[in-house]
């Protein structure tokens, strides 16, 4: 059953991606239009429209790129490094 569901979604990948993008837009609209931030937001920055969407996206890109860069500095090495 689980396998069938996943295959079903895989076969309609384009549709799934479009639906995902629609959800993203809806979530941002929720933040911008409907959300009451008074009394909850601790800082002024959080009151910017869609702040946490931007934060999540930038954080994700930063973590991927910075860790890749860090790995290329020589931290990532061959598997038998300690064997000699």
């Amino acid at each position: 059953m689980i396998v069938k569901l996943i295959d079903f979604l895989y076969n309609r990948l384009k549709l799934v991606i479009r639906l995902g993008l629609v959800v993203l837009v809806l979530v941002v609209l929720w933040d911008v239009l409907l959300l009451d931030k008074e009394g909850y937001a601790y800082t002024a920055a959080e009151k910017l429209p869609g702040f946490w969407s931007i934060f999540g996206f930038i954080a994700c890109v930063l973590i991927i790129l910075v860790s890749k860069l860090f790995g290329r500095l020589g931290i990532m090495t061959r598997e038998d490094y300690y064997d000699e």
Partner: protein
Amino acid sequence: MMSDFWLHPALIMILGALVLPFVRGAGRRPFLLVVPLIAFAAVLQMQEGIHGIFYFMDWQLTFGRVDRLSLVFAYIMTLMCIIGTIYGLHVENEYEHQAAWLYVAGALGVIFAGDFLVLFLFWELMAFSSVFLIWFRGQARSLAIGYRYLLVHTAGGLALLAGFVLHYQATGDLSFNQFDVANPTFAIYLIMIGFILNAAVPPLHSWLPEAYSEATVSGAVFMSAFTTKTTVYALARGFAGMEILIPLGVFMAIYGVVYAMLENDARRLLAYHVISQVGYMVAGVGIGTQMAINGVCAHAFANILNKGLLFMGVGSVLYMTGKAKFTELGGLYKKMPLALVFTLIGGLSISGFPLLSGFVSKSMIVAAGFDAHLYWAAFLLTLASTGTFLCLGLKALYLIWFGKNNCSEETWNKATDPPLHMHLAMGLAAFFCILIGVYTPYLYQMLPYPVDFAPYTAYHLAKTIQVLLFTALGFFLLIDQLTPKPTISLDLDWFYRRGGQLFLWLATKPIQAVDTAVNNAYRTWGLIPLMIVSRFWSWFDWHIIDGVVDGLARTVRWCGDWSRRLQAGQMQANIFSTVFVMTVLLILYVLAS
């Protein structure tokens, strides 16, 4: 005598471990279930107060300090022991179960310890029993990894002991309570170093990824839960408000995520991520407000379950296929769908999706940070939480169950959903992940302080959903960056691993050369005269003494044989028998006094 009747759950686990080898055949599995259940029941019916006081020389030893802080940790530890034991029911080696249970006993002993002596005793029991969960993996490299683990923990234990002794000397007090963190002495710093080594705070962390990724399949489930979280308890007990822990914890939270992103071995990824999660707890202890300590307890509770679930899910892949590297896995949703569902629940829980455990626990620490106006810490911890979703919810799941299929034909054929008891254990953990997320009073009522925190507000929901979904967007846009590569990542263990090799080189090359030179000189100047003398003695011995000695020699040889069998020169066997004898002696002493 005991001051009142109070059954220490650690005693139940130790006795269970001692009896276990004698329970064979059909009784084994029920026995494996019953003992952790009794320990759990003992915690459930426990009353707050001070129990189990004994006197040893001039000191008063407290085995049972029961309050809300120790109870919530004991509750989750014994619960996890039930789940972990069910997960490991397939393990035939009774000594592995024994090691796991003694390890749990060590954790429970630390949690209820009221003074440094008892704490130290159980602290070492944890280290010396958990190392067997690495050795029982039985790979060529397991032995070396176990010794490194032991050496690091012994070093930490020594710092702790030195701290205790100095603290005792300065204050004359052995009881373990909140330290004066505003004016820390050298002794308090030493104790803190001993603690944060066990909590894997950088730069004292690199034992953890190595040990947890190389332990047995079910051993890693135990290890992920007990050592670091017991230490979090100890930190929360003694170091609430110690400000240096805030930057250390925040750094850890990010450090663990960065290494998890680089990792090719799924269990090592999870292990690095343990560091990241413990970072939240360490930072929470540093913040030290009532809300922060509540958050620390809640997050430790939730994390033991969802991280345990992840180790079980990935462990089941390793158990079935023999592989844990992303470069050797992929596309497994067709073969292991149920393991996927459970691991997904674990991954989403730990990432803090609404209705799951991380949402109600992690957010408490972050909110405590905002409340204390530590904005930089709160924002960086939120950033680290996007990393959690990125490396667990997305990267690990995607590369094992979806993505490019890197399985060899053999791996692919071996992969099926794991045995029933593994599903049962994962199902139990998943149930609690959902229960905590859906019904908040379950966890919140156990926390040490009254809870003034409502996770399900529109603002918190919107914030969390935005952060998580846009992390997912970033992941799918940059997915090419995350193609797994067959590499390892250098970490600070480089210093002692390469340092060890340098020492070995010194020992084999220069020191060996000196040794050879001395030997040669001795052979020329020492040996020849000696030979002449010895020839005389040989004659004397042959003709005169032999008759007398023969009888004696037979007795000596018998004794030698007997002690040789006892002490085969294998360190592991020695450690095992020593720990065992120590434990038995302790019980005898306690019962006799």
